[in-house]
């Protein structure tokens, strides 16, 4: 196995192209090192992508731009994502209780894993775009199109994720995130992210409900039925419960972490919790 530590993007792209599918970019290495024997046995070239200048969080033309190697700890403590309209990011990180993983794991790593991780669920609820780079230039894929099935994503040979972009939420918009896990050190069993916008008369004018870690498809999914219940209504207790119950349209996976039945119940609980949090935050936003 060879190791590369490129100092700029073009150099990284060249190596990724040259080694093709036998090369992988590595950022925080928390997933790579934990799975190197089962999943990365055939890898010939490890490309460290932490010196490419991709650690940043900034607002550009009404979009939040997060560099791929920005760590979860940075998302948790940086003003732009810790408070205000994008605080859902810090709130998502807060639910990952392992400080050592927060210090190492990156948003790019999270996004690339179609499986039991939290950030893709939040990104789906926030209509995020994933910016992909390679020797041939850049292209953008929406979060809803980026995951292709359990541990599969839209990256082609020679490509890597360079940035995550999130449109600035409109006025009176709030987000909420909730999850279930067995222990602090385990992966999520169910997570849910919700984004709500309040319109005239406090009626819900826009809603996103995303559920992850629990689905049969292995990737985060929108709970369309729950969104329909929320849209155009006043968000009283009854409607919130009805919307949460409607999220049982999501087909849940049965595995050693939890049965499909239990997950279905917990999806409902997580969605209800996330709706309530989103509503509180939406009410606070001017």
């Amino acid at each position, binding site marked *: *196995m060879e190791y590369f530590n490129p100092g700029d993007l073009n150099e990284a792209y060249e190596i990724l192209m040259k080694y093709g599918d036998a090369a992988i970019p590595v950022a*925080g290495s928390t997933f790579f090192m*934990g799975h*190197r024997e089962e999943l990365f046995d055939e890898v010939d070239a*490890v490309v460290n992508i932490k010196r490419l200048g991709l650690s940043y969080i900034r607002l550009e033309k009404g979009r939040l731009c997060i560099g791929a190697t920005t760590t979860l700890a940075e998302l948790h403590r940086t003003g732009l994502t810790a408070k205000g309209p994008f605080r859902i990011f810090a709130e998502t990180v807060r639910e990952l209780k392992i*400080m*050592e*993983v927060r210090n190492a794991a990156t948003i790019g790593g999270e996004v690339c894993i179609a499986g039991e991780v939290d950030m893709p669920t939040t990104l789906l609820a926030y209509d995020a775009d994933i910016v992909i780079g390679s020797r041939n230039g850049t292209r953008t894929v929406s979060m809803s199109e980026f995951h292709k099935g359990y541990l599969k994503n839209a990256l082609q040979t020679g490509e890597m994720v360079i940035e995550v972009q999130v449109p600035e939420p409109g006025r009176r918009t709030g987000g909420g995130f909730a999850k279930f896990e067995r222990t602090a*050190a385990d992966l999520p069993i169910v997570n849910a992210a919700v984004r709500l916008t309040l319109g005239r008369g406090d009626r819900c004018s826009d809603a996103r409900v995303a559920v992850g870690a629990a689905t049969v498809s292995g990737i985060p999914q929108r709970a369309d039925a729950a969104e329909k219940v929320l849209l155009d209504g006043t968000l009283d207790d009854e409607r919130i419960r009805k919307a949460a119950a409607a999220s049982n349209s999501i087909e849940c996976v049965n595995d050693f972490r939890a049965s499909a039945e239990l997950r279905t119940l917990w999806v409902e609980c997580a969605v209800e919790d996330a709706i309530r949090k989103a509503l509180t935050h939406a009410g606070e936003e001017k």
Partner: protein
Amino acid sequence: MHPITLNINGEKHEVSVRPHWSLAYVIREKLGLTGTKTGCEMGTCGSCTVLLDGKPYFSCLRMAIDSGSYAITTIEGLDADGKLHPLQQAFIEEHGMQCGFCTPGMIIAAKALLDENPVPAELDIREAIGGHLCRCGTYMRIVKSIQKGARIARGN
């Protein structure tokens, strides 16, 4: 093999590594610093925690080859001038361990906390060790030990 230099507890160590070797493996097996423990080697127990530039990381999930540019601190680097670190002293006084396997990781995580927040609330302490398992179930005494270590470090 790739030659690297690791800066551990203020001392430079020259060592040749393979890209997939973890920092935990190199520290323990190549450099003989066995104070750092490895339990799960997949990020779920916390016993391998070390500091890189003052921040805690699981050394089992870190590539050794990517650790050369940091000041690494392991449990062996905590005592100074023949005196135990306040946290080490406190773990002894408060019986913060039974078998002691989780202790180096707990103390390293606690040091990172105290360096940033010398007066932590109990919740801060619980959060700081959120990724650490103690198979002996000594959690209550570990929290007490960290509280006492913070007091000793502050001089009261």
